[in-house]
């Protein structure tokens, strides 16, 4: 078992654990967005950054991907870490201010300003849905398309995929689809730390669908299911 020192705690970490596993085991809090226990680590959101090593040699690494190794020295909350995390979150909130998950995290880590113009997009490209679909639902119905500023997540060729069983797992795991924060549109896109008291919008229309898309039955998925159900009846 590799001996590591994490925030000053000496610990024999089991082989194969990541820094994040170890931190969670010890009750040290590290924010994460693109990580989910049931899925492979992705390392994309960069919120789980921690600093390893000391002095000149120290560097930032993503704790969700970094395996523990003998002699590793980890600090989970240095100024360098906090500054980087805040900047990442500032960028993500500016991209997608309606995500309650992000807003809550901002409140927690004390992000108090957003200096970028809000884009008000619907996706932060955390890739959770893609991995969920592939690794847990075994469907591979959605994936990333393009790169850089044209990146998006969609079905192949943007058409409804045969592979998609409409299980909704992608929406279940999405940090921006679920729990949309429609709080005050302040100049500052931070929501003001309210509790989200919104109701799922589709519940009003179809009792069975706790969907938060705000589209009230117009997005198509449930309507289709509904008609199929009717046919069966």
């Amino acid at each position, binding site marked *: 078992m590799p001996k590591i020192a994490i925030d000053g705690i000496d610990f024999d970490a089991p082989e194969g654990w990541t820094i994040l596993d170890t931190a969670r085991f010890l009750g040290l809090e590290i924010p994460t967005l693109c990580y989910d226990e049931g899925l492979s*680590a*992705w*390392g*994309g*959101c*960069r*919120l789980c*950054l921690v600093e390893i090593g000391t002095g000149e040699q120290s560097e*930032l*690494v*993503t704790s969700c*991907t*970094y*395996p523990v190794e003998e002699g590793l020295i980890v600090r989970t909350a240095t100024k*360098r870490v906090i*500054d*980087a995390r805040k*900047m*990442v979150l500032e*960028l*993500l909130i*500016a*991209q997608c201010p309606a995500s309650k998950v992000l807003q809550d995290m901002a409140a927690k880590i004390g992000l108090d300003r957003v*200096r*970028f*113009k809000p884009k008000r997009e619907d996706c*932060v*490209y955390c*890739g959770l849905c893609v991995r969920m679909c592939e690794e847990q639902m075994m469907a591979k119905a959605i*994936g*990333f398309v*393009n*790169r*850089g*500023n*044209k*990146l998006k997540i969609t079905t192949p060729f943007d058409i409804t995929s045969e592979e998609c069983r409409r299980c909704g797992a992608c929406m279940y795991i999405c940090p921006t689809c679920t729990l949309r924060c429609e709080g005050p549109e302040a100049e500052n896109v931070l929501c003001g730390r309210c509790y989200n008291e919104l109701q799922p919008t589709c519940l009003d229309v179809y009792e069975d669908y706790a969907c938060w898309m705000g589209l009230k039955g117009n997005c198509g998925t449930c309507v289709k299911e509904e008609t199929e159900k009717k046919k069966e009846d």
Partner: protein
Amino acid sequence: MKPEDAKSIVKSTLDGGIVDDLVYKEDGNSFIHLSEIPFYRKQMRILSGKNPLVDPVNVEDYIALGGYKALVRALQKSPEEIIGEIKTSGLRGRGGAGFPTGRKWEITRAQKGKVKYMLCNADEGDPGAYMDRSLLEGNPHSVIEGMIIGAYAIGAGEGWVYVRNEYPLAVKHVTIAIEQARKLGLLGENILGSGFNFDIKIARGAGAFVCGEETALIASVEGKRGIPRQRPPFPAAYGLFAKPTNINNVETLANVPIIIEKGADWFAHIGTEKSKGTKIFSLVGKVRNTGLVEVPMGMTVGEVVFDIGGALDGKRMKAVQIGGPSGGCIPRELFHLPVDYESLTGAGVIMGSGGMIVMDENTCMVDIAKYFTNFLQEESCGKCSICREGTQRMYEILTGVTEGRGTEEGLTLLEELGGIIKDASMCGLGQTAPNPVISTLRYFRDEYTAHIKEKRCPAGVCKTFIQYMIDLEKCTGCELCRKNCPQEAVEGERKKPHSIMQDKCIKCGICYDVCEFDAVVKITGGKNAKNSN
């Protein structure tokens, strides 16, 4: 030279003379030998010098020049000895990061497991760079030989050359070279009777810049989406198809046979203490001679730019952009810096794969930073939030500066953002993406400030800040500008001074270019722009 000249050339060759009229001339001097021409005089073409001598599709040419001799020699030694030699030579990766090649081979060799792979990185995604291409097209066997020696050293049985599909001639020449090598028993089973087996395949890339990054390249060869993954584990431990994998750049590999043949000490003699051998650069921009130049490491930037490139008349060079899109700009004051990994990194630029763009006073440094940042925001794979969003926001701020919406706070934010993108990104793309911005802010902050405070673009490039006007005293009324203006924004009668209707003008600059009397002037911030095309 024209076909008609052939007669006199043959005649004087037979007579043992030269045709004076056809000899290369520069500044009134004639040069008979290639090595005397200023462009070549300071170069040291140990890699690229063979290109003109071999027919790339003819392995006999390569062998006649001593090709594959190094392989024969290498196979008589142990892999450890080869690794030792490469380590002694001090060869470092030419793909950008400058990792010691011998050390990389040693690490890969030390991995457990029988199956290992050797990859050659010929992605060359930097726009305007074509060093690797010239080697693959012009002398493919030198790269193949280097690959075989490397594979022998690390114990790999299979290799891939990852080359972009936009290089059809390189693909063709490498394919032919591999077939020829196979026929001669230089690839395949039991190479040259040594008992060592190794074969090479070609993988073609679709041209994304990020696919040159090693983990993305591996994903691409595996047939997956070409995006990087977080290291560790490094490819040496967990690479292609989860096996230990070594990746080297084309130019790195082409150096290998030379080191084995001429000796590690000979090689270590060239260059500086920490950067050995030569480096090929693609020299372009505001210099007289452009093209690929190969120089010993440690030559100063100034020597490359002035002595090899040569200054253009009447223009003052301002900066050199080194290292490809994510490199940086160094100002003229630092032209005394030697070209080696440490000096360049210290100055905030990178060696990269070896792009060098010379700029003069007509180049706006903010515009340059914006140009490269735009490239990077499009080429970021988008996996890391900080690289994807960060490059887009840097581009947004820079666009603001060039369009008159810049603020001092914006510059502070640029610096802060740049620092964190470097620090927190997953792969080398993000880690170097802020270089164009940070280096121009560091050395040319006055240009940023001029845009923000004085609403002026000193180089006269950013359209928001310039105005074209006609100097009434110089204008002869020739009507040339009026006829050429696509917007019909110029008015005036023949033989009388013309003028530009500012509300119609789209600042395309055509009038400025066509006027034969220098009567069209470019104004920025109430002053004449330095620019004088």
